[in-house]
């Protein structure tokens, strides 16, 4: 069941990216181009997604268990350090160059775009390179914070 829900979530996420125009790298670059004719579309996409997300994550914060009663795997609080900042800057440079971030690149690759496929291959290589150089980020389930499912 979890697998089916995850597949549906991926499909819905992809449809959202397609509908909003975010799978088109030039639309994204239109947002990043403050000096040219600026395209505010991306800001509205994020605003709209955040409006939904804030409500949902407030509910999740109060009771971090899934519909099946399993504890949620929320990322633990971490430091604001050079890794976070350098990672963001490197990502932003790549994002500005191509106009792709990971989600839209996968969606465009799924449509058969060779450019997006090449980007995704390089992106996965970059991820694996990082994880070989540095330890893979640890994920800690906040089981101890999750209330027991109702018996």
């Amino acid at each position, binding site marked *: 069941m979890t697998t089916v829900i995850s597949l549906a979530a*991926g499909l819905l996420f992809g449809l959202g990216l397609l509908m909003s125009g975010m799978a088109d790298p030039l639309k994204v670059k239109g947002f990043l181009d403050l000096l040219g004719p600026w395209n505010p579309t991306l800001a509205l996409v994020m605003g709209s997604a955040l409006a939904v997300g804030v409500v949902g994550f407030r509910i999740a914060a109060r009771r971090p268990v899934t519909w099946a009663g399993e504890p949620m795997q929320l990322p633990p609080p971490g430091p604001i350090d050079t890794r976070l900042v350098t990672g963001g800057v490197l990502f932003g440079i790549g994002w500005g160059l191509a106009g792709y971030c990971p989600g839209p690149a996968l969606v465009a690759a799924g449509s058969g775009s060779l450019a997006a496929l090449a980007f995704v291959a390089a992106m996965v290589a970059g991820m694996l390179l990082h994880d070989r150089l540095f330890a893979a980020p640890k994920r800690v389930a906040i089981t101890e914070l999750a209330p027991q499912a109702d018996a």
Partner: protein
Amino acid sequence: MSIDWPNFTPWAALGGGLLIGLASLLLLFGSGRIAGIAGIVGAACNALLGERQARSGQAVRWAFIAGLLLSPWLWSLFGKPPVGAPDVGFGLLLLAGLLVGFGVRLGNGCTSGHGICGLSRLSMRSLVNVLCFMGAGFVTVALLRHL
């Protein structure tokens, strides 16, 4: 600053954003995981390569990735998926991919994990990361197009 009115699509943006937000919550409440594409793809590939730590939750990850990859096919039942094409050469595209892949793992998130889920959780860490990648994106496009 001038606005690119012909390419500004506010209603589609609001509708698409709504779907993205709902999809993130569907994954959260359905599987207990954050819809962070950088984290999901990274862990999925690490587990393929035999990383033991990332093995649990593989079905959830690949199902979500499959959904993203199949979404243009679902869209194409109704029309041509609007995926456009990048305006840089192959070399820059590969460099961009490497930077994005490395950067999102180093910073532990991307536009979805930090940008949507992190900001939704009002995480200060995510806000800092988003300001970094947005800032770097603005500067990069300015240098690329206006230098």
